[in-house]
């Protein structure tokens, strides 16, 4: 159960939408405490891969394992629902468009699931909201509604919401892509802090600089396959594959 080397495992992941094959036999291993970035052009399947890990987009074939338990077990409907709900409590996810609950304050966004699923009392929930929102620097806005927050603030609350379930793994699906450039850094700072605490993270991102600065490993995906994989200093500075080079060159031009 505490096998460090195979904490997260994706085995032979394959996914099709109708006749379109978006993931073609992808395997991936993430060690406990590791941070892996997935980069690649849009349509490469990187978000689909991320969303397969907590079964939001179920795989057509292949397996996902977390800490010795198969996430996408094949079970009868009701048993599967129970199983996946338990697994998802251990897998935090942060979305591009935040998906905060607009009818709830920051505090309620953070405490809703822990209260409902872990039976926290109001006092415990308040303490949790204070702790998590403080961690992301949003304690001052604890009773604000999402509509009263900026994009960066919303995303920080969304991270606090995910952390409140004490996940073993955090998934970030282009967490900063929808933000104004000047708001990106405040979210990146929070993610860096998590990295320092050795949270296991899989990050789909377009931010090459950020990926290079926090990640242990980078995957470059294109057209449903992992083209290249390795430490950031190799993949970014000295890629082996032409496709990786072409993508990075284009991306750098785009950034200028």
């Amino acid at each position: 159960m505490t096998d460090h080397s195979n904490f997260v495992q994706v085995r032979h992941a394959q996914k099709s939408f109708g006749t379109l094959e978006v993931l073609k036999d992808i395997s991936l291993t993430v060690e406990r405490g590791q941070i892996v970035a997935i980069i690649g052009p849009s349509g490469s399947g990187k978000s689909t891969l991320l969303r397969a890990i907590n079964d939001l987009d179920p795989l057509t074939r292949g397996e996902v394992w977390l800490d010795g338990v198969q996430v996408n077990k094949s079970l009868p409907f009701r048993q599967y629902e129970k199983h996946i709900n338990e697994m998802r409590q251990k897998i935090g996810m942060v979305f591009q468009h935040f998906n905060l609950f607009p009818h709830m304050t920051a505090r309620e966004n953070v405490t809703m699931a822990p209260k409902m699923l872990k039976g926290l009392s109001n006092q415990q929930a308040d303490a949790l909201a204070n702790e998590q929102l403080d961690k992301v620097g949003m304690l001052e806005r604890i009773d604000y509604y999402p509509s009263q927050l900026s994009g960066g603030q919303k995303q920080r609350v969304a991270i606090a919401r995910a952390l409140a379930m004490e996940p073993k793994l955090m998934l970030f699906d282009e967490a900063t892509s929808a933000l104004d450039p000047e708001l990106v850094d405040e979210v990146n700072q929070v993610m860096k802090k998590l990295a320092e605490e050795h949270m296991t993270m899989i990050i789909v991102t377009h931010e090459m600089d950020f990926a290079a600065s926090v990640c242990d490993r980078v995957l470059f995906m294109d057209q449903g396959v992992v083209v290249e994989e390795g430490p950031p200093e190799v993949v970014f500075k000295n890629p082996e594959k032409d496709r990786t080079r072409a993508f990075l060159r284009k991306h750098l031009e785009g950034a200028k």
Partner: protein
Amino acid sequence: MDFDLMLRVYPFFIEAAGITILLSVLTAFLGLACGALGAAARLSRFAVARFVGAAYVSVFRGTPALIQLFILYFGGPQIGIQLDAFQAGVIGLGINAGAYMTETIRGAIISIDKGQKEAARTLGLSRWQAMHKIILPQAARLMVRPLGVNLNMLIKATALVAAISVVELTYTAQRYIGSTYKPFEMFLLAGILYMIIIYVTGRAVAWLDRRVQIN
């Protein structure tokens, strides 16, 4: 125009308007219940339930409410359904309104951004918990105004039950025409009372809508 006559008979019309209001309230509750069930059926993961929900909507929106009332009230006894006129009116109109409300409720639910459900499920909430805690509270706010439109239509549709002899506002107007031979005054009086009922409910819906909006 005979104002004296209108002043003399209006207390009886007020009483009849009371029946119209009672009919409307009962119909609205029954319609809401049918609409909630219908929407649940249409959004079910079971194909049979979805089919039943869709059939309910197309049958009851696809035929005149008057025909539905006639089948229930006049045709009912033939197949063993004995209802008095008032019961038939409430049940017939309620089921009819429910078909429209099914679509209103379903529309509000499916208009909630998919990301809301995903965020809830990602935290570990079950389908039902996500629906109950995240989707419905947001959808309910969107439903108020369109359900208000359904209510407006339903109140006006209660006039149809005059045709199966429920003594409500329209029937009362017809009855007084029989004795006074003044259709203009009698229907005008009924129309004014309908308008007052509709106006007040419209304002109530608008107030409720303002109250439930987030911020």
